[in-house]
């Protein structure tokens, strides 16, 4: 029996999902659904846009207007949706490869525009759909099927990248810390501007196995032990933070005007609103 939340927010007839046993994506998808529900949004006015990859299959399971696009392009499609109808709540679900490799250019420019889109990157540190190739978030030195001798690329810190590019809300959550994740995504949706959340997932099938990280439980335990809330961390001395990953809200800037608001002013100025 699916839970009430799942019945309400997911397309139950599309389940079970295609993700591997132990994958963290299902938890993150549920967190997104819970956050949307907590915001009290009309499902007919919510649009989920995704790209290509494991993460992007989430759109099809979610009971809203869903747009499963081409690899890397979710944010560019989402920009068109939001511009066309600013009354819609537009949420992007994308992956580490989709968003920061093939779609990296769209990411930094969506951040720069400060368009009111909430983007959640399901980061499993690997290309899962194609079977375990290293991605821009595979840690330096770790392995993938295309990095059999260890990855010599340095990995992105996605929230930092987004903040530097102009995103006015950034944060990080994990598959393990579900209640915190739901709250963070809720805040990101409510933020009027571009927000980016890195959702740390786990991929025991490819990333985990290749790098001897143990099973899903072990990987989530690692999240539990390694991640620390940014607010708590701000009160700790630096030596206590070594090797830790900050989660929660990481940056917020309420000073910048939102993109579609500015465009509506141009329309008004031109008399196009009559």
């Amino acid at each position, binding site marked *: 029996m699916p839970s009430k939340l799942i019945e309400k927010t997911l397309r139950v007839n*599309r389940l079970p999902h295609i993700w591997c046993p132990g994958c963290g994506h299902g938890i993150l998808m549920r967190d997104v659904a819970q956050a949307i529900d907590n915001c009290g949004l009309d*499902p*007919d*006015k*919510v*649009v989920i*846009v995704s790209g290509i990859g494991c993460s992007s299959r989430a*759109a*099809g399971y979610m*009971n*809203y*207007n*869903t*747009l*499963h*696009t*081409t690899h*890397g*392009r979710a944010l*560019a*499609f*989402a*920009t*068109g*949706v*939001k*511009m*066309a*109808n600013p*009354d*819609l709540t537009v949420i992007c679900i994308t992956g580490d490869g989709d968003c920061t490799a093939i779609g990296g*250019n*769209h990411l*930094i*420019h969506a951040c720069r525009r400060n368009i009111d889109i909430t983007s959640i990157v399901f980061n499993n540190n690997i290309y899962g759909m194609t079977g375990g190739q290293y991605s821009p978030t595979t840690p330096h030195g770790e392995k993938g099927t295309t990095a059999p001798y260890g990855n010599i690329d340095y990995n992105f810190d996605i929230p930092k990248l987004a903040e530097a590019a102009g995103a006015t809300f950034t944060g990080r959550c994990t598959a393990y810390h579900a209640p915190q994740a739901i709250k963070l995504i809720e805040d990101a949706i409510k933020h009027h501007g571009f927000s980016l959340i890195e959702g740390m997932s786990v991929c025991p099938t490819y990333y985990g196995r290749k790098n001897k990280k143990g099973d899903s439980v072990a990987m989530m335990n690692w999240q539990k032990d390694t991640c620390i809330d940014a607010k708590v961390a701000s009160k700790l001395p630096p030596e206590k933070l070594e090797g830790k990953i900050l989660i929660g809200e990481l940056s917020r800037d309420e000073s910048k005007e939102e993109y579609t608001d500015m*465009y509506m002013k*141009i*329309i008004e*100025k*031109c*008399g*196009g*609103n*009559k």
Partner: protein
Amino acid sequence: MSEKRFKLLQGNEAVVEGAIAAGMRFYAGYPITPSTEIAERSALRLPQVGGKFVQMEDEIGGIAAALGASVAGLKSMTATSGPGFSLKQENIGYAAIAEIPIVIVDVQREGPSTGLPTSPSQGDLMQSKWGTHGDHPVIVISPSSVQECYSETVRAFNMAERFRVPVIFLMDEIIGHLREGCEMIPPEELTISNRRIDRKFNGTMAYAVQEGNYVPEFAPFGKGDHFNVTGLFHDLDGFPTNDNQKTDSQERRLLDKITKRRDRIQKWEEVECEDCETMIVCFGGTARAVQGAMDEAKKQDFFKIGMFRPITVWPFPEEALNKIIRQNKHLRQIIVAEHNDGQMVLEVQRIVEGRVPVIHLGKIDGTTITPEEVLKKIEEEY
């Protein structure tokens, strides 16, 4: 904004005016010569009519945003030239399989890669049909005057909306940068097609079609049952399927909606084709040199020349060409004049099947074919 009805306009500008008359309310693109004036005028004009313009970070973003806006209910366009047209190809396929109306303008320029950015060419003719991977439907329209930049853009939008397909508006630098008079026919005097909207998909059968029809009805995001759009092969409900029979029936319908309705899409111009000895087949800006050659020929005691000009280049007006070949007993040769190394000529040869000689007149040096060159070719081959 009250605009004068008759105005001297550049081809690129007329495209924007036609698009707005047809109902375009969204444009996304990236600057590229020789199409940039389309972006510039869209940026100026769209907010005046309550529409929206966004300059995206790259060519792919341009078509992606335009498709997003179309799904959200606005008639959308993007414009580009060769290099950008190549970059947009993947999402043209997405528009085809997800059945999202969009108009993509390609103002062709010479050569592969960066080529000669400011020189005329018609080298993207085959790409406009086959550019994106996989079997897919597409409609391609090519104007040969500033007036057609206006009125055929209206038709391009109508076709995109009626058939839920990407329509490619295949221009060349000759017409894109040409200024001539244009009658800006107001929307109330035009036939404007809008996508057929069904707010309740009878469940969520977003891709179901009624008996005898090929095009599913459509509801923009936020205005009807929420449904799923994907570039994967999908079932009638819009959700991915690997079922081979369902894949086949979806692919067949996508192709059939164009091929079985091609008589509603094809458009061409015939000038003195009924009794000519040489018929010149051409499209876009090349037609102007061919008509110039016909003007010259009339001043001299020259062979009788006719011109057959597809305006819808894909699907090619095959039946019309066949009819001329059947009926014109004086026809001795067909010359296909185009600014490339031989693309439309292949289609014409396929249709003519050797009944009369089909000869190619091409040019790929960045200059335009002249009327003298057309006449010389006719004489040489006669």
